[in-house]
Every structure is written in structure tokens, then in C-alpha cells.
């Protein structure tokens, strides 16, 4: 799978993500899509790899293996975004910040920001 295909698939894949159970906070498909798309990583590897990274991250961090938990962590302390494009940019800025502040993880050999590893994990759930 080529790199550019990833962007298409994540948009299409977002529609398949189910709305959370009653009692849980609800997130729009577009919001989930913005959170589950690691923008920079998507430029250097394909969707299959991102899914594999995400699955490996969830295995190594079982406490972060659930969709809503991951969404909560990704949105934690995030300023309110007026739209999902801005949300995606905020997440991307956090990715850069993670690298600068040593908040990194190594997953399947990939040296990643904690945030983008969680994005991969969220994406991998969408594949189930």
C-alpha cells in the first residue's frame, strides 16, 4: 500500500468507527478521524504499517487498548478546537512537543512520539 492511500483510507475508515456506548462521551466521526491520523508518520509509511504499530502499542500498553481511553488521552489538556482540521494541527503540534520533551516510545522499532503512537493505536482499533 502506498503512502498517499493512507489518507484516503483513514477518512473512509472513520465512518466505520462506532459511536461510544451510552453514558460515555460521544465523539463525532470527524473528530475520531482527526485523532487517528498521524499526519507526519502517514507521509513516511503506509496504512498497514501504522495499523501494525498501533496494534503493537496496544499490546505493550493494555491500559490504553480501548478506544475511548485513547481518545481521552489524546484530547487531554487539549485546547478546544473549533473544527477538526484545527484539532488535527493541534495533535500534530503535540507530536512535535513530545519529541522535544522526551515523551517518546519505541514501537516495532519506530521511534515515535507518545501521541502519534496513540494515534496509531486508535487507527488500529478502526481496523478491527
Amino acid at each position, binding site marked *: 500500500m502506498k503512502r498517499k492511500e493512507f489518507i484516503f483510507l483513514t477518512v473512509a475508515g472513520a465512518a466505520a468507527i462506532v459511536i461510544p456506548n451510552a453514558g460515555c462521551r460521544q465523539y463525532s466521526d470527524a473528530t475520531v478521524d482527526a485523532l487517528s491520523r498521524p499526519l507526519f508518520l502517514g507521509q*513516511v*509509511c503506509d496504512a498497514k504499517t501504522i495499523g501494525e504499530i498501533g496494534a503493537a502499542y496496544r499490546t505493550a500498553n493494555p491500559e490504553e487498548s480501548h478506544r475511548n481511553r485513547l481518545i481521552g488521552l489524546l484530547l487531554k489538556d487539549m485546547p478546544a478546537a473549533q473544527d477538526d482540521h484545527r484539532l488535527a494541527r493541534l495533535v500534530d503540534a503535540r507530536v512535535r512537543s513530545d519529541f522535544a520533551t522526551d515523551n*517518546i516510545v*519505541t514501537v516495532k522499532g519506530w*521511534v515515535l512520539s507518545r501521541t502519534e503512537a496513540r494515534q496509531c493505536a486508535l487507527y488500529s482499533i478502526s481496523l478491527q
Partner: protein
Amino acid sequence: MHIDARQLPDNTLIEGDLCIIGTGPAGLSIALEWNNTPCKVILLEGGGFDYDDRIQDLYAGQTTGQKYYPLKSTRLHYFGGTSNHWSGYCSPFDPIDFEKRDWIPHSGWPIKREDLDPFYARAQPILDLGPYKYDCTWWQQRDPALRSLLPDNPAVWNKVWQFSPPTRLNGKYAGTIKKSKNIHLYTYANLVDITANETVTAIQTLTVKNLQGKHHTVKARRFVLACNTIQNARILLSCNKQAPKGLGNDHDLVGRFFMEHMQIKSAWLHLPAPAPLKLYDIQPGITKMRCELAITGAMQRKHRILNGTASFMPLAIARNARASIETWSDQDPRKSLNTFHNSSIAARRNAGVPTTGGANTWMLSTRIEQAPNPDSRVTLDSQRDALGMPRAMLHWQLTPLEKHSTRMIYELIGQQVGAAGIGRLQLMEHLQDPNDDSWPDFTSGGWHHMGTTRMSDHPSTGVVDAHNKMHGIDNLYVAGASVFPTAAAPNPTLTITALSLRLSDHLKTLEHPTLP
């Protein structure tokens, strides 16, 4: 002048002021310093001016431990030594390499980097290198296309390598030595025994021998053993008629702490768009300098790791490249060299025409120092060579620190690459499990032998002192990489040459204070 020791009458007495044993980069760089001086220098070479397989076989030996090249093939046994097939990579050691680092047992030199700086500068022209400039910005000011991958940061920096043509010391300096009036080069004169005085505090004579069965005796006031790391240890250990454990081996250090540089493919750098990375790329025979990514001293201290660097190769070439340990497998160094070169050429040819835009994906390879390890060592075999000398045995042994350090180097580079928004780095499979201390079969050495007669101020921790003089013996000096207490990351020839020039200056102050 040149004398073929095979043509001398048996039992000839050879006398001089200074005797240098070995004509590789260490021995020759000292000898050249003494040309046109009033001192009579005896320069001993075991072989002649060309490859001779019977002479080369004197270097054969067994290896155990970490998989290694055939010993016969790793050093050349004729005038000029291994400079006759080296690849010319040069870079000085870093200041931290000389320091005692509490996370690296047995680390620390009795000298500092600034002690060597003037000698590094003098070594540059001997090896036909450029100016003594190893600051990346100096080169970038002269070629703006040498752009750094990373902005300035506290963890990763650009370490400069310069490339010798590579200089073959045989071709460059044999004529000078042959014409010299005061340097007496004896070829086919293999050192087989050293005789000390009764108290074993000074060397009196050497015995040299050749395959024609002739023995000769060499007398001098001072002796410099410059035969290479394995042979220096082998000779000292085998000279045990007066010192049962071997000369200079009262503290059981001779032969121990053998070190190599691990060279191994380690990670992939993925970029969103092709980039030429001229600063890090190499065109064999053309490139005069390039950089490798290195880890700052501060980060080495923080993460308690060894010093190492990462070099770059475009994916198109890397996917066809074979590890050195897989291509350098023949006992005959000429055949191994051919296979090695042909493999490198094929990898480039199969990659096709390089694009000017560069590559999206680059393979990063590690060159890293080995932690000094007393169990990584040269010993004597029960088998003997054609001159009756015990053959060398090498047990090359690594520690978990090398693996941990290699992994950490790429995590640090990966972090900076991510922080700069340049790309992402992926460790290769053999580095992915932090609990795995093993090394894969394609782990290669750099053909860099170091550390069997290490330098230290105290005889309990080193074989030679800070001036390369053997502890306890007044007139025996050791030159070459065998005196390195730690290995640093760079190829050793530049440092061997610099240390040898420093030793030469020291000997001049002892021999004749007015010598230039």
C-alpha cells in the same frame, strides 16, 4: 638504506641507537621523524616489499567468541603493513574518549585530547589528508551544499571524517627509507626473541629470524615494538624465558582488553521527500570528507553509553549491500579484499543510476567503540608457525553495554529527527528488544585491533605508561593501537600516527635533546 637480512651471514650482529620493530603506520611514522639525524636507526620488517604468502602465514591464528575474520587476512605482513590495503577513513578521537567514565569499567587514558592535538595536525600530511579541520562548519562554509540533517541540538552532532587517498606507506615512503643514510631497514627480519638484563629491567638484544633459517642479533639503546596489536601481545607473551608470564606481564594484562569497532547496519531513516544528504553520503575515491551523526558527550554521560556514530547509505544501495563479515572470509587477504570490493561495487551497480534528488529512505550503520573487557584477549596457541613462534589465538568478546549503547544512539537520533520534523527513524529487528544482548551473525568488526598493551599511569592497570614506555623496563616502548585503553568510534590509523609522533618526540628528548 636497505639490507635484506636473508643475504647477511648467519648470526650477524646489527647495532644501532634506536631499533624500531615494524614498518606499519606506527613504526614508519616514527622512523621518518629520525631521517637525517645523527642517530643510527635500525628498522626491522618481517617481510619484504611485496606480498608473500609464506610470510603472511606467520599471522595466521584461531579465533573464538564473537565471529571474526580469519586472522591471517586482517593485517598485512610486508613493508608499510596494513596501510597497503586500508580504506583511508580518518577522524580524531573526541575529548570524552580520553576521560575516565564511571559507567565504562577500565576506561580513561593518562593523556587528554589536547595532548594529542599538535600530533594529530602533524599526522595529517603523512596520510595525505587535508587541513587539521574537523569542525563541520569549516567545511560547510566552503561548500553550502553540505547541509546538516539536524538543526543544532543538545544530543546529536556532525562528526567529520576525512579520507586519505588512501596512502599506501610502501609506495610513498619506501624510497625515502632506502635512500636514508641513517635509517637502516632490514627486511625479512622477524623478531622471535627479546633478551633482557638479569633483573629484566632493560632490554639488551633482540633475536630476528627468517624463513631461510638465519638468526641475527640486534643491539640498541632503545627499542620500539610496533608490530600491530595482536603481534605486539604475541611477541611479549612468547618472550618468557626470563619473565615466565611474558615480558611486561607481571600484572597479567598483556593480551587482555582486545577491542574492535562493531560495524553493523542498525536503522532506517524515512523522509517524506527525497533528500541528497551530501554531507553524509560518500562517493568512493571522490569524497574528501563526510560526516557521521555522533552523540554529544553530555548525552553519553546522561544515558551511560559508549561512543558511537551513524553513517548513511541510500536504500537502493543498502538493499544489496552485504556485511563485511560475510564477504571477508578467505584466509588470503588479497582474495578477501577482492570479494569485499566486488560486493561493494555490485551493490552500487545494482542500485542503478543515483538520482540527484537523493533518497527517501537511508540505512544507518553503526560504528561503535567496544567497552574494555579483560576477557576479550589474545593468548598463545600450542601450535607454532614456520619460525617456531607460538601462534596467536583471539577470543573476541562483547558485553551488554555495546548493545544497549547502540540501541540508545538510535533512540536519541530518532528523537532529534522527530523533533525537527524531518522524518522518522526505525530500528532494525536486532535492536528492537531492549532485553536482547545478543548480536546477529552479520555483526562485523572494522578490522581495527586495539588494546592488548594498554596505556596507564600505573603498572597494575596498564602495560605502558603515558609515554608508551613499558612499565618496569627502561628502554622498551610500544607503539600502535595496542596501547589504546579505549577504542573511541573513529578508525584508529590517524590516532596511531599521532601517538607515534608524540612518542618519537619523547624519544628525541631522551636520546639527544638538541634533535629537531
